């Protein structure tokens, strides 16, 4: 069964094309990561799923219901943690959760839910005094009311410390194991990578790629960068390096040779340079990371990852996967 199905969804705000024909299918029971830099259109896509905004073209189906004409049925079966929301300042956490239960017409274990998100101590305090992270936890508790078939979480870890983010990932896994589909967006790759089965990368209102996380990781692993500082260098050495299996490109400039190759080809390529008379002074190798792929997919011009492996992903926020860097001297 399909949980979410977007078909050519376009959305214009005046002259701004927020979504430019988004096609996306999320299967039931999977944790689906919706990645993209801020402003890519992630929240607009979610707004379409919840009928907060109406698409200019295309259609959206959620849990088998039309997201626009049958939105109430969609929302009956969906738990939502929206982005850019605010709590009701004068109501307590308990009242918030009880309101959700009443709205959905379900019984809710209010205490248990607040305990699950770590808000037990603040349960009877007005939510106006909550920190951003506490408000986020409260909204998550509200989303969990009634064991929804689908959870839509828009930037669920924003405002949370690493520990809180880990707790949320745990809850996401528990919900998936219960049988729920989880669709969650983030501009931070590390949040998605750790928990998702599949991800879509959205950029400038278009889906750039949809793939399994492990497939993306394999793809990232196949891209390594070897940077060699040499003293003497011959065309023969470069040619020999190019001959090595797994090497995709070799360039030389000012006594620095840059080799792009698969992970296993690094050492053979280095040896090939040395065997053909290049005097190797120093070398640096870098494995490309998922982060690099993310940057690659979301960079405006489709540029390849920058060579220090820590390039900003459009907003410079939170990178959890450090570049896999080895340095050596001969």
């Amino acid at each position: 069964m399909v949980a979410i199905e977007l078909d050519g969804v376009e959305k214009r705000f005046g002259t701004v094309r927020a979504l430019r024909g988004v096609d996306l299918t999320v299967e039931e029971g999977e944790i689906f990561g919706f990645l993209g830099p801020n402003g890519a259109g992630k929240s607009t896509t979610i707004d379409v799923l919840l009928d907060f905004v109406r698409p200019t073209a295309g259609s959206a189906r959620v849990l088998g219901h039309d997201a626009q004409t049958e939105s109430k049925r969609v929302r009956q079966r969906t738990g939502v943690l929206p982005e850019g929301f605010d709590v009701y300042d004068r109501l307590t956490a308990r009242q918030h959760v009880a309101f959700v239960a009443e709205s959905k017409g379900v019984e809710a274990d209010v205490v248990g839910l607040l305990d699950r998100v770590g808000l037990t101590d603040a349960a009877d305090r007005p939510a106006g005094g909550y920190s951003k992270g506490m408000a986020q936890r409260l909204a998550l508790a509200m989303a969990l009311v009634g064991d929804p078939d689908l959870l839509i979480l828009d930037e669920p870890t924003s405002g949370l410390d690493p520990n809180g983010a880990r707790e949320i990932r745990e809850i996401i896994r528990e919900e998936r194991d219960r049988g729920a589909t989880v669709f969650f967006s983030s501009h931070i790759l590390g949040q998605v990578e750790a928990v998702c089965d599949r991800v879509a990368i959205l950029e400038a209102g278009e889906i750039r790629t949809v793939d399994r996380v492990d497939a993306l990781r394999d793809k990232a692993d196949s891209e390594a960068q070897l940077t060699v500082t040499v003293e003497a260098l011959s065309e023969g050495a470069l040619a020999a390096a190019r001959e090595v299996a797994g090497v995709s490109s070799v360039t030389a400039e000012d006594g620095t040779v840059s080799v792009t190759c698969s992970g296993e080809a690094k050492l053979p390529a280095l040896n090939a340079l040395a065997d053909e008379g290049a005097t190797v002074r120093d070398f640096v190798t870098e494995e490309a990371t998922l982060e690099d792929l993310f940057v690659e997919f979301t960079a405006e011009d489709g540029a390849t990852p920058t060579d220090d492996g820590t390039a900003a992903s459009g907003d410079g926020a939170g990178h959890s996967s450090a570049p896999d860097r080895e340095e050596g001297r001969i």
Partner: protein
Amino acid sequence: MTWVAVARKDFTDAVRSRTLWAVGGLFVVLAVASSIMFAVLGSSSGTVSQSAGRQTMVNLILFLRAPAGWLVPITALLVGYKAIAGERESGSIKLLLSLPHERRDVMLGKVVGRTLVVASAIAGGFGAALVIGLVMYQGVAPLLFLAFVVFTVAFSTAYVSIAVGFSAVTASASRAAAGAVGTFALFNFVWSVLPNAAHLLLEGSPVPDAGQFPTWFVFVQRLSPNGAYEGTILLFQGATTLEAKLGGPVPFYLSWWFALVVLGIWIVVPSWLGYLRFRDADL
């Protein structure tokens, strides 16, 4: 039917607002002060007959009606203008509408919830006034007073509907507030002199002679919420005053029940118009 949940949430939320308690307190103070003042100014006779008791109650109602005429609109507009625009501005509407509420449930729940808030202030204020009335001059005819309270609540509902209507057409609370202020000015200062302006143009004088008021003149006055609220007092004071003003019988469209119909229109139409815009809005 999820509007009940919205109304309950909204009432619980709004009733905790300090501003509203201040306004509600002002309501009680003014109602109590008015009824005490009425007792001091009014008849000092200690013993009253049944009919005199009724007349006292009518006088109290007429006396309370004046401050209610401007305090009720202020309270209702203040309670209502942020109902939807405020939630859109803060973002709490995303929590609200991620739940299975249709937008019409939200609209209806908001109008009902906020009306209950205003109605509580009215009930508190007028209830205190009634107690004072009963104690100080044995005014009887509580049913008459109850009718007055019901009319006042209907009057307040009309203003809540207008305020929530404005709140639904805009995403900005300050624009909704501007609409509320404009509405107050229109119905409290402008509307009542419109017939005078028309009469000036038609007849050369702004005010018709006593006993010769054209029925259209009074009818136009009665079309605003304030005018309609004023029209309901015919139930209490009888038609004689108006008959004298018109110099003839009172047509049905100037009767107290027709005034209630006009109030009903003011309750339904503004929030309906606001709903139509809200229904089609991107949040």
